[in-house]
């Protein structure tokens, strides 16, 4: 996994340590740089009422996914129980606890795209990549996801790879599109 590799390379010699009340043990946190970034976010939002979802968004941007460690860290800093953080993470479909591939391919399964055949496109991607939605290819390159309407329905059917939107596509074009990534 790319994310993990990055973690290794940025690992510093001063691990952050803190005491986790729920687990009654000391957790050692590696990966200073990302935690430093997270600290900045937490400094900003620590006292803002109702900011948990916002913080988790930022944390996911920094780490790529919300590991148990990150969730515990956020809970600790915001002074809310870990269970509540986990409850929020598991409720919202955009939060992920699994590391992601380099590119996330999102297939829109909104109505407009569905009517225009996004089902076939998903099938094609599943067979070409050999993974199911929610999974990541073995080489860590692609994560496949289905999503709800991306709001560009007039270009249906749509897939989004990273930040690029590809509209009006057919299953036959998939292979060619993937070569660009």
């Amino acid at each position, binding site marked *: 996994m790319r994310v993990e590799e990055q973690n290794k390379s940025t690992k510093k010699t001063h691990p952050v340590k803190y005491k986790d009340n729920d687990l009654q043990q000391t957790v050692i946190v590696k990966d200073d740089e990302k935690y430093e970034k997270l600290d900045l976010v937490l400094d900003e939002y620590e006292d803002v009422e109702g900011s*948990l979802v916002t913080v988790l*968004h930022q944390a996911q941007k920094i780490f790529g996914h919300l590991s148990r460690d990150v969730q515990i860290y956020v809970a600790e800093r915001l002074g809310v129980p870990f269970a509540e953080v986990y409850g929020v993470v598991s409720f919202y479909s955009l939060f992920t606890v699994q590391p992601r591939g380099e590119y996330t391919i999102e297939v829109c399964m909104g109505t*407009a795209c569905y009517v225009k055949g996004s089902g076939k496109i998903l099938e094609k991607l599943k067979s070409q990549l050999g993974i199911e939605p929610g999974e990541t290819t073995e080489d860590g390159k692609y994560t496949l996801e289905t999503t709800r*309407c991306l*709001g*560009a329905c*007039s270009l249906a059917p749509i897939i989004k790879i990273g930040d690029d939107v*590809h*509209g009006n596509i057919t299953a036959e074009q998939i292979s060619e599109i993937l070569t660009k990534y």
Partner: protein
Amino acid sequence: MKGGKILTTKMHLLVCTGSACLSAKAKGIAETLREELHKNNLESQYRVIETGCIGSCELGPKIIVSPEEIMYHGLTPDDVKQIVQEHLINGQIVEKFLYEVPETGEKKATLNEISFFKNQIKIALRNCGFINPVQIEDYLATGGYQALTQVLHQMTPEQVIETVKRSGLRGRGGGGFPTGIKWELTRKSELKNKKMDTKYVICNADEGDPGAFMDRSILEGDPHSVLEAMAIAGFAIGSRQGYVYVRAEYGLAVERLDAAIKIAKRYGALGNNIFDSDFSFDIEIRIGAGAFVCGEETALMNSVMGHRGHPRPKPPFPAQKGLWNKPTLINNVETLANIPIIILKGGDWYRQYGTEKSPGTKVFALTGDINNTGLIEVPMGTTLRTIVFDLGGGIPDEREFKAAQIGGPSGGVLTREHLDIPLDYDSLLEIGAMVGSGGLVIMDETSCMVDIAKFYLDFTQDESCGKCTPCRVGTKRMLEILMRIVDGEGQEEDLEELESLSVLIKDTSLCGLGLSAPNPVLSTMKYFRDEYEAHILDRYCPAGVCNIKPKYRIDPETCTGCGLCAKVCPENVIKGEKRKPHQIDSEACKKCGLCYEKCPVGAITRGESRKHLSIGGVR
């Protein structure tokens, strides 16, 4: 068409940079245009404006030359060079890139000649596509923030509320609750500690209905109008703090909204002592995280507070107990976008559009099997026929209109028999559909209605938050039945079972999600019952969408008993005496279809036997 115009001496070149056009590489078009103007020393005469969505999304990157509003579309950077050379320098319209009427091939130069545009009345979308969404000067030039100035310096909160009530505006988020009355209720709710506490204004920009993008386009194309409306609402109800709750998928909308908030603060239109009055109001953005139920107001408020987005029973309504238990006004983006112009022009002006009970206009997102997809704004009460055939330009590939899905997962289908009913809140409720947020998905005969019902139920089932049992378990049972039917394993009792489950779920669910979840199933069952029956009784999908093997039968009246079918059947499941009608053992039949092909008199049918009973779903 009515739209905002900006008063300067320069001619305007509008380049749409809404989400759809951006993915069609509109940024490159704007850049090339600027380079070309520079190369040809035309910068002093023309201003390139990167606008929000103008609505005709499938026409790809486009340039609109203002003030004539000549539209060039489907452009590449090379085409831009040609347009600069021929149109801007030589004064010749470049025919090649003009809009072409699909049926006649006739070229149309200006927006007003194109039926997609000329049949629209733009009120909520008045600025979308005509101004740079973020720059406050553009918004000011179209009369922006004048309503807020007027409200703060010349009106009382009661007068503001009276104007909104007078307009008859109803909530565009789906419920259709009268906006003025909601404002009044929230104003009348008392705060316990007036010094310390505040009421809240929330703008609902969650837009979860798949196939809808009205709110997104407004936020991307005219964010200041929503901010201005929120400040007006804040003044009317007595609030100091607003939140915009935007779904995370709408990155560009968040970006533009964020920029607009910063600029509005600098300009003094938000923040402390707005326009030198003693009214202060601030707005924060909150981003959703992919849960449809968070569009429901009580769930949304939980999410704004950083919790799981669970809905709660009403009453108490948000107007009484909302965010942090304080009175809260929650309105949809499109509802709010109408407010500033209603204040400026008056409630009666707004009422002249639309119908008696549903005044004003409605924005629809027109998608699916239709020639002109995109965003349209039409008076309430416009017929589906006008929308599909005049604005939408009809169905592509010479196919037939079959149905329109309106109101998303809470709505229903409209069929050919509904083409002439007025689209407004009450007429639609009568026939078991709803205006909903404004998603309008058009389907031709290649769509299977059972499959569509399954699609929506799959959606609601997946998005059910799980708090109440009828919604969590009930929708699951319904989905299982529908899956069975589209797989060709439906049973005769299934339709009744679906109906009784629907009633149960509608009667006992906690929030709007469950209450309306059965609607797409009930509505398709009502108008396309024959399609359900074809799947169940004949194992046949009339639209050819579902992957089921048909059930073969031999019509005893037609069969001559020639025995050819029995001879070709590889499974030996056709029996019968010579010159007597034969029979197929359906259980053992492997559905290879050889007998069907071989029968010289067409006595073998496969499911389509009942198709002639219904045309387009209407018996």
